[in-house]
């Protein structure tokens, strides 16, 4: 599995190492286990197709996978928005009914996460779950490291406040 070919890790080794991180990132972004599974699968399929072009000198495998996962998530949000616009009445009730547990999180934390926007959840996912450093996370988000740090602080503060509120 972990065979190295031509001085770079094998795709299998990378998939094995980063699968959980990518899945958690997408789960936190979408808050839907089924969607996160589909998007994770999509992400690795796309990564497989562009594996020959991956250059480890330009980005770490995790950052590279994260870029692909992010694009997959954005595509999903776009299509969801289009669908919601088409079926406004249905979507309103559907989003209510599709609320489900992410699993593994405490109740107040899960409720707090649900109140964050996808953008806020994303920065938390990148820095906390994927454990990317500020610079790498900023590159994925297309913002400056300072803006990334600010966005993370705000998101975590908001989470803390919400957890406190829900805990009462």
């Amino acid at each position, binding site marked *: 599995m972990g065979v190295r070919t031509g001085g770079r890790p094998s795709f299998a080794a990378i998939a*094995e190492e980063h699968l959980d991180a990518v899945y958690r990132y997408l789960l936190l972004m979408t808050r839907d286990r089924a969607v996160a599974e589909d998007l994770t699968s999509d992400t*690795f399929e796309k990564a497989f197709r562009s594996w020959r072009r991956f250059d480890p000198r330009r980005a770490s495998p995790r950052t590279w996978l994260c870029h692909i996962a992010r694009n997959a998530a*954005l595509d999903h949000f776009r299509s969801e928005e289009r669908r919601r616009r088409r079926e406004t009445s249905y979507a309103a009730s559907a989003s209510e009914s599709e609320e489900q547990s992410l699993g593994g999180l405490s109740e107040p934390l899960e409720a707090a996460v649900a109140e964050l926007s996808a953008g806020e959840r994303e920065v938390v996912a990148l820095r906390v779950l994927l454990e990317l450093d500020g610079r790498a996370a900023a590159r994925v988000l297309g913002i400056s490291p300072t803006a990334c740090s600010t966005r993370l602080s705000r998101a975590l503060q908001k989470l803390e406040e919400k957890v406190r509120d829900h805990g009462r």
Partner: protein
Amino acid sequence: MAADPIDERYDEIVRGLRALPGAPAELRGRVLELAAVADTPRPPRRGLRLVVVVALVVAALVAAISLTSGGSGSKKTSAGGGGSVEAMPSRASGAAPTRERAKTFTRETHSAQLAPVLHGAANRPAVGLPLSPGRLTEVHASLRLRVRNVDGLSKATAHAMRITRSLGGFVQSVDYGTPSGGNGDAYLTVRIPVGSVQKAVTRFTALGSILSQHLSIRDLQNQANAQELRILQLRQLAAQLRAKLAGSLTPEERVAVQARLDAVRGLLRAKTGQHAGTLREGRLSTFELELTTRKGATAAPSHPGRIGRAARHAFSALSKTIAGLLYVLIVLSPLLVLAAAVLWGARYRRRRVEQRLLARA
């Protein structure tokens, strides 16, 4: 992995979030199956890269050959119509017979055109110069002559200046000196109307014994025509751009068109200056005269050999290529700036849209 740690205040939240479950076994199986396929070795596809490299090398060679042959080809063509002709230095001592001296401007490559014509009793050389009347021609001649003594040197120098003025030319510089041992030298650079070159050669060579000489004639008409054509094209382009500016344009388009117009104006100024220089060169020939009293003086070979000519052609081709590249760069730079601005704008817009989308999701 995290080089910059997350604030300790949020440790509890961080720990809580990291308790999120990993990928389910079914998903893991699917992904690892795909990964196993990805790692099966495939034959390397170097063919395309090789083809691209070979194509680039061939293109570079073709460009180099066409540029080089273009340079010499134009020379050959123009030689027929009064193109570039070079007269090489001939060596003749002061005591050399007049017949020897009569060979002054005969040369290997264009000897038929440069056949000497003896002027009767004067026994002085004159040359049937291949000058085409009505065509712009650049003439550059250098003559090295020996005179008997310092007295003769002074007279010959004064005479050379008189000849120049009588032919409607002017003396650009004179350097006269008799430093030691009764010997002396005089160096003159004179400009003479191209129409009087033939007379000037005859009269200057009568000032002393010829030690060496070099005459180069180059047709400038094609060059001047090409410059005029280019100037016309640039004027038309400038007029079109001005008309475009007078119409309705978006601010970005206006900036781009204005930048292009400025570039075209700059080019037009440069081309007009070049054209004026070409006309000036075509009207006045340059003569470099060296008069000396030294008996041991010998001719210095001033004509470049095959290698020299090849080097000159290569240098000329290189300068043309650089000029062409510079031209392309000047013309394209406003477009490149516009393209960069458009790309930056599109990227910025995409980021904004993504942010809005994520804020709503």
